[in-house]
């Protein structure tokens, strides 16, 4: 990517609760709010912070599989439902599996680069319309359907269990399971500090030991991961405004209330091919590297990262792909506490996908909202310290098995 032709900001973020098992309010037997509710809540949440719908020029809605979860296509049409003021304005729906939210952000950024001043990016997914065993069928659409037949009953968990298995074999099972369990603990401890997180109500006394002691069982679930290693089925939406300098002024948002987007990249791998090496997230590596290069900083400048830990092993592989640890040492890096909220590089400070939740099409936007909150001091109990010399944050949003990746670098103003 060439240098951006103008400055891009994000502000006015909003997350709904990530609803699903673990939340006290969640009752699978009772009727629950649908897609409309989540789109509306998140959209209104952002509009309230930008001075109303009249200040928004365009909207982008990211969603993965409402067509199957909710039997609903044509999501762009729900944008004017949020507020009458969005009627007859451009609205576009984008899809890149679990990177749909990230792709909504990129589409919004490109719109601003192309001349718009204020774009609302919204990501949403409502998945608890079916049991997990059928959710697995729907999410398998993020892989190549030709491979579904030979895949696991829980298709994606199966893919990442295979990655974990390859990592175990290459670098040692024991230390890796310790790293995975530490990742789980960090996720839960961080989620407990964030009232919208799915694991906010989690009271397990010792999540790390609990996860470690739960031996994976391939007969009933997966060979190499247990249920705690997996993000849950979530309903939720997030929204954020993407703004030019003029957009900030129009919306009455002070610069210090916004973050600046200083670099971004998307990268794509051939969905019909297996990863070159199951222990390496090559697309994450590629996208992260490009985004950081565009931003003109290195990983050492980052104060915090939101990375796509749909499974604990994905967290560890991302640590290596980003370059914080050498191949095979990511598990140790995590186990030693370096990614904890007080560690060398705090990751997923409100719980990430395992702890906060993973409403698939909403996740990319949720990550941006979290970085915006951290860099502007709005994270409440989950706020971490942003060192003066490291005013940067980063999001890594992944679709499929390291197929579509969106990486964005942000700077505190």
């Amino acid at each position, binding site marked *: 990517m060439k240098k951006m032709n103008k400055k891009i900001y994000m502000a006015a973020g909003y997350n709904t609760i990530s609803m699903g098992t673990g939340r006290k309010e969640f009752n699978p037997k009772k009727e629950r709010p649908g897609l409309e509710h989540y789109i509306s809540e998140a959209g209104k949440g952002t509009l309230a912070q930008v001075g109303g719908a009249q200040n928004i020029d365009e909207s982008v809605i990211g969603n993965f599989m409402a067509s199957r979860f909710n039997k609903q296509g044509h999501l762009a049409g729900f944008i004017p439902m949020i507020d009458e003021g969005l009627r007859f304005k451009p609205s576009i729906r984008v899809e890149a599996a679990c990177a749909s939210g990230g792709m909504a952000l990129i589409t919004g950024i490109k719109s601003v680069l192309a001349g718009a001043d204020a774009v609302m990016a919204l990501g949403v997914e409502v998945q608890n319309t079916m*049991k997990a*065993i*059928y959710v*697995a*069928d729907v999410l*398998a659409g993020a892989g190549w*359907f030709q491979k*579904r*037949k030979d895949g*696991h*009953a*829980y298709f994606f968990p199966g893919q990442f269990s295979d990655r974990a298995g390859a990592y175990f074999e290459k670098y040692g099972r024991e230390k890796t399971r310790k790293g995975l369990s530490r990742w789980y603990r960090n996720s839960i401890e961080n989620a407990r500090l964030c009232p919208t997180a799915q694991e906010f109500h989690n009271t397990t006394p010792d999540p790390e030991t609990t996860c470690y002691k739960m031996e994976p069982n*391939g*007969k*009933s*679930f997966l060979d190499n991961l247990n249920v705690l290693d997996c993000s849950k089925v979530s309903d939720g939406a997030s929204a954020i405004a993407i703004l030019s300098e003029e957009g900030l002024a129009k919306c009455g948002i002070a610069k210090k209330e916004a973050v600046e987007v200083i670099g971004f990249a998307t990268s794509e791998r051939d969905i019909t091919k297996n990863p070159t090496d199951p222990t390496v997230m090559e697309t994450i590596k590629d996208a992260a590297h490009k985004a950081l290069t565009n931003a003109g900083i290195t990983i050492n400048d980052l104060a915090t990262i939101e990375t796509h830990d749909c499974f604990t092993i994905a967290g560890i592989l991302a640590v290596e792909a980003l370059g914080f640890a050498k191949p095979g040492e990511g598990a140790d890096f995590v186990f030693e506490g370096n990614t904890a909220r007080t560690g060398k590089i705090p990751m997923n400070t409100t719980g990430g996908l395992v702890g906060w939740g993973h409403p698939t099409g909403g996740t990319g936007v949720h990550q941006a909202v979290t970085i915006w909150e951290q860099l502007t001091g709005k994270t409440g109990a989950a706020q971490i310290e942003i060192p003066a010399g490291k005013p940067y944050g980063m999001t890594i949003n992944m679709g499929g098995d390291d197929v579509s990746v969106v990486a964005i670098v942000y700077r505190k103003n």
Partner: protein
Amino acid sequence: MTYDQRLQNVSVLGAAGKMGSGILLLTAVEMTDLSLKPENKGKLFILNAVDISQEMLTGLMKYVRAQTLKIAEKKMVWLRNVYADRKDLIENGEIINEYINDVIGIIRPTTNIEAAYHSNLIFEAASENQELKRKLFSQIDENSLYKPWFFTNTSSIPIKVLNNEANLRGRILGFHFYNPPAVQKLVELITITENSCEMIDFAEDFAKSLKKIVVPSNDYAGFIGNGHFMRDALHGISEVGSLMKKFSFVESVYMVNKVTQDFLVRPMGIFQLIDYVGIDVVRFIMNVMNPYYNHEDLHSDLLDKLFEMNVKGGQNADGSQKDGFLKYEKNKPVAIFDPEKNKYFAIAEVTERCDAALGAMPASFAPWKSVNFSKNKDAVLMAYFSELNGMNTLGSNLAKKYNTRSNEIGQQLVSNGVAHNDDDVNKVMLTGFFHAYGPINNFLK
């Protein structure tokens, strides 16, 4: 005949009933799983669901379909392997549907008993009527070429009596599921000396395959489960009689029910349990058992009276509780029947006076649900009963007396040779009745 061959043609008698439907479901799933083994490909598996009611058989098929869906969802990892060679079945949902079709496909709902003439194995879950059972067994055995094995679900009739009356020469044993069979883990296995080893081995293998816990019981009317339950219920009824010197019938039933549920930390009070099983069924089982026990009278005038007044309890077709001793709203007791006045009286009207009379619950009380699933259940119960033991209130004294009687009933089951040991008695009450602790305990010593 191998295990698989034995299960190629099976009949369930009374298949649409409360117990029969569960037995049919579990057997259908077991048979389907066998039919899906590569070595059984192309072999015919047939399960006759025999019942007298066409209407109930229709309901049965709906039940089996709904339950098989749940079962399939839980074993998806296995099912994907089983159907791995079916290229047309790709998604979990497609495989689950196919599995349901396969299970339904082996079931032949019928009102014709003749279907059972071709079976190697007959599960009998007809009503608890000795003459009916004898007739069914004789008719099938006389017309069958296969010398079938009869597994009866009787909960009270001695197996040797059925064996002799139907002239089965040892081809019958008691395979007693608990209600509901699809959920309760317990199977009481009652064998007689004439049974072949092959038959007993098969019964044990079948139970194991269904993931049931087998408790062997000797062949005495009522076996272990009803041996305890009937006497325990009679104790409750007799306590009502004693309390009625000072309290009304409704108040007395309320108090005994509360003592048995709360003070004794059981899943439900004794009168709710009688309603759950059915007043008619309890009365019937007592009538079956009574002639076999010369030194005690297993009979209740009160149950006779309620039965005659058509107050029977039991469950509706949708599984909800019918009114009996107690009247239920959303399966929760709200009123108590007074046979003298022939009407129900709201529980709310008697709670204040009765609770005051019973006295406070021990401070360490926790309801059955939290105790039963607690990790340190034994310690919790020990502390609770030790506190209860130190109290001297009407409620605590009734509870202590009840526990002592329950203990005595359990020990008698062992000393009379019904159960092999204390542990078997406790296991039946823990797994078949969901008690948090066995009747043979040291809590009050």
